[in-house]
């Protein structure tokens, strides 16, 4: 068990709940989702509660994350997109804090479960589709008809564009999930080398310095990946929301 790199992704039921034949158990995954929201909410609330004109360090972290997401959204979707700011900011903070919490030893990584990332991606695409039809009506379908295509090719191109659109939530969720899963397995495998090499006496202990150094380096890389994937998720959300706001222009 201690050397099994997959063991960290096992879901265990903390409080079994079953309603009408469906499993609604409170699992370790749910517990860490609650923890993610609690940490993110508490951090933002506590650091901004003093509201200093000259921000403290923690307050400026909160303000920087706000500015970061706001400028990202404004760049990608224009000032009309700012009505989606709470949505994008919540997504960004949730993914970022979940990724960072997962880096602690013995912690569960919520975003390494594809069903979680897929649910987040479906939320994004659902918002795009519902808002796109609400705002543009049937004109939203112009998104699937690129201009300047010869008439005979239009049905084929439209089909391809529709498949391409439907594949967005899948590639969005698979990217986040695969990055987190692969990173955590790599980390665990290299850390496992340290333990198994040290069993070979003095030479083994000397040799285990190499995987130990690698583990430290990968941990640093994982912090970068945790931030980067949250950033990519938020940027793509902004770009998809831009499609809903301004289709086919």
């Amino acid at each position: 068990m201690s050397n099994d790199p997959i063991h960290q992704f096992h879901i265990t039921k903390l409080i079994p709940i079953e309603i009408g034949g469906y499993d609604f158990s409170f699992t370790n995954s749910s517990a860490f989702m609650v923890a993610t929201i609690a940490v993110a909410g508490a951090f933002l609330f506590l650091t901004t509660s003093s509201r200093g004109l000259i921000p403290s360090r923690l307050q400026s972290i909160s303000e920087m994350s706000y500015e970061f997401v706001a400028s990202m959204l404004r760049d990608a979707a224009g000032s009309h997109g700012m009505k989606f700011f709470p949505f994008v900011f919540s997504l960004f903070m949730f993914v970022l804090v979940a990724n960072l919490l997962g880096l602690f030893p013995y912690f569960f990584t919520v975003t390494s479960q594809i069903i979680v990332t897929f649910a987040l991606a479906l939320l994004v695409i659902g918002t795009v589709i519902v808002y796109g039809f609400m705002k543009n009506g049937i004109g939203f379908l112009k998104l699937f008809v690129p201009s300047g295509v010869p008439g005979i090719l239009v049905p084929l191109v439209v089909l391809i564009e529709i498949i391409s659109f439907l594949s967005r939530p899948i590639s969005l969720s698979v990217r986040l999930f695969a990055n987190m899963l692969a990173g955590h397995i790599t980390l665990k495998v290299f850390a496992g080398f340290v333990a198994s090499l040290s069993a070979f006496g003095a030479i083994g202990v000397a040799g285990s310095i190499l995987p130990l150094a690698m583990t430290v380096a990968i941990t640093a890389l994982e912090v970068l990946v945790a931030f980067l994937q949250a950033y990519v998720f938020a940027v793509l959300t902004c770009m998809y929301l831009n499609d809903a706001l301004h289709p086919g222009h």
Partner: protein
Amino acid sequence: MTMKKGSDKTSKSEPETSDKPDFRDDDLERRRRQLDAEIATRRRSGSEGERGAKSGGTTGYGQAVKLSSEFIAGVAVGAGLGWAIDRWAGTSPWGLIVFLLLGFAAGVLNVMRSAGVVAQPGQKVPDKHPKGSDD
């Protein structure tokens, strides 16, 4: 509101120099605006640099995961659609064949879009979203 509180505090903390409070408030306001403008320009250039460093740091591994997930998603959605149509209309195996090929094309389109070779669908004006292709 915070600005007002801050200016009040400064005028209270130095009562001997605040014989002309209006002048001081104007001065503070002017300096605050100047600071805002400076922060804005500096932050913009800072985020540019950050972005460049990021795209440079993730060239290999990140790019591989990005492009492969785009391609696999296209093929998987095509195959899924074809299978669903076959099930619903009973045209097995033609729907699966046709939509698998279409999904392949969509996957290639996704990859080319995310690599920045082909423009994004909502991106007919290239100078409007200059940084859209670096995600």
